[in-house]
């Protein structure tokens, strides 16, 4: 039996006396879209930050593509094919959309100790940027400075940046956050396409989106996985309903 793409075992993260991640174990199989849901404060972003290397776990292990990455710095994980989008849009605000994506391509094109040539003139980086922008529908906004893009466009750009690193696994931290109805629908459509190419871990509050997209859903409460399974199973799970209450009702009604 082959190992899953991502395997989290007995992960613990303490902040003082609080366990934000409490002995959490989770497998993400290659090719799946695995959604992680849970009420506010369940430790979803803490988990993502440990996966990407922004936070060091207190104990436990993370294996990715057959390698122990628990102690690897963020940039090394990115090189292995782990890409993330940020919950709060986190781009390079004074660079153009194309620059943002080209830099991501550059990061995966050998070292960057080249001091002389004009980086913006490098065709293959620009081409990579164009195609990633086209992938998310932003090709016509390539030369716009990020701070001038709309919120929805910035969310799309986050995805383009992640895609430009040619990831094996895409960690998406609330990609719909702050999007309007049509923008959300566009994003769902986009993720629907992307999931065919890349394994995705999706943290999201928008239950419609989660149940429309996910192959598998894990429910996080107080840093623990209380249920994990196919969307139909999760929808019927009594413990999930109890823990989740308000949002669980919403799930039932919309689903």
């Amino acid at each position, binding site marked *: 039996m082959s190992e899953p793409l991502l395997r989290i075992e007995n992960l613990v993260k303490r902040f003082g006396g609080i366990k934000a991640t409490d002995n959490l174990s989770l497998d993400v199989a290659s090719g799946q879209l695995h959604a992680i849901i849970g009420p506010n404060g369940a430790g979803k972003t803490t988990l993502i930050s440990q996966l990407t290397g922004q936070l060091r776990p207190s104990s436990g292990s993370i294996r990715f593509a057959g390698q122990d990455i628990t102690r690897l710095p963020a940039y090394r994980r*990115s090189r292995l094919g782990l*890409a993330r989008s940020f919950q709060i849009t986190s*781009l390079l605000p004074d660079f153009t959309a194309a620059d943002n994506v080209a830099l991501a391509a*550059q990061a995966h094109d050998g070292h960057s100790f080249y*001091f002389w040539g004009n*980086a*913006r003139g490098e065709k293959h980086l620009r081409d990579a940027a164009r195609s990633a922008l086209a992938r998310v529908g932003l090709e016509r906004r390539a030369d716009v400075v990020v701070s001038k893009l709309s919120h929805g466009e910035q969310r799309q750009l986050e995805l383009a940046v992640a895609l430009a690193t040619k990831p094996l696994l895409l960690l998406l931290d609330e990609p719909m956050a702050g999007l309007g109805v049509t923008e959300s629908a566009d994003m769902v459509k986009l993720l629907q396409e992307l999931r065919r190419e890349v394994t995705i871990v999706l943290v999201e509050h928008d239950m419609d989106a989660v149940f429309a997209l996910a192959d598998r859903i894990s429910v996080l409460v107080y840093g623990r996985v209380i249920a994990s399974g196919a969307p139909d199973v999760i929808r019927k799970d009594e413990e999930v309903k109890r823990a989740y209450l308000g949002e669980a009702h919403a799930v039932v009604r919309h689903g």
Partner: protein
Amino acid sequence: MTASLNARNAVAALVVAGLLLLPLYSQASGNVFALTLFTRIVIFALAASSLNLVMGYGGMMSFGHAAYLGIGGYAVGILAFEGIGSGFIQWPVALLVSALFALVIGALSLRTRGVYFIMITLAFAQMAYYVASGLSRYGGDDGLTIYKRSDFAGLINLSSRVQFYYLCLGCLFGGLYLIWRIVNSRFGMVVRGARSNEARMQAIGFPVTRYRLVCFVIAGTICGLAGALFANNTDFISPSVMYWTRSGDLMVMVILGGMGSLFGPVLGAIVYLALEELLSRITEYWALIMGPLLLLVVVFGRGGIMGLLGRFSRE
């Protein structure tokens, strides 16, 4: 960023032309002082431009940049004192020692961020200051007189005012061209990206700190060159070159001219040093006038003089 004829480029072109023609004016009018003043300005413009590379483009608020002026200067002064007068030895040593100093300081201080980075770079520069004060063989507090300028085997005569001026100007333009190439290169994009959003740069796969360190070393080396020029210009080097207020002067030049714009620090150095000269002729309390002036530029002209010019060209 097109190279159209906007206010910024027009001013930059005018200043370049003025700097190139200055010796002609000085000779025609017999105004030797202008040449002396502008030699000094050009040297500080080079130092400020190197600070701009780390501070403006790299977002690293180094408050100890004058240390490299001193280190470059002392390398020249000490070698001259010990009887090694050749510039072909003095200058490479000045650059090398500055680079090594920057490597050590950078490796230690780049572990910190924000205010701590400012304080730690300041502390290292002050250490260099006190070390220089303790060099009793080389004059200690009183400094070291350099009796003979660097000798370049007849290639160029540093004792000729005009030749020395053009050498300084050549170093400045060369330095600016180098910085321009660097900030637009792959390397420069990484450093500028890290200034904009460090977490993002790490998330897309850049080991940010080592790029910053290299940037820090390049800037220190360029400033070391300015130090070698400085020592030759004044025929004298003393610890006061490294004092923290001097680092502050360099910072003011960068901010006044416009952080993160290639030509800003040159304008900053010109305006700052020329004003200092003019005002100190009027009153010994010149700093009382200079202070509020700087305040006005910083408060109303975000982006310094270059920022103001940019606004004019947009309207």
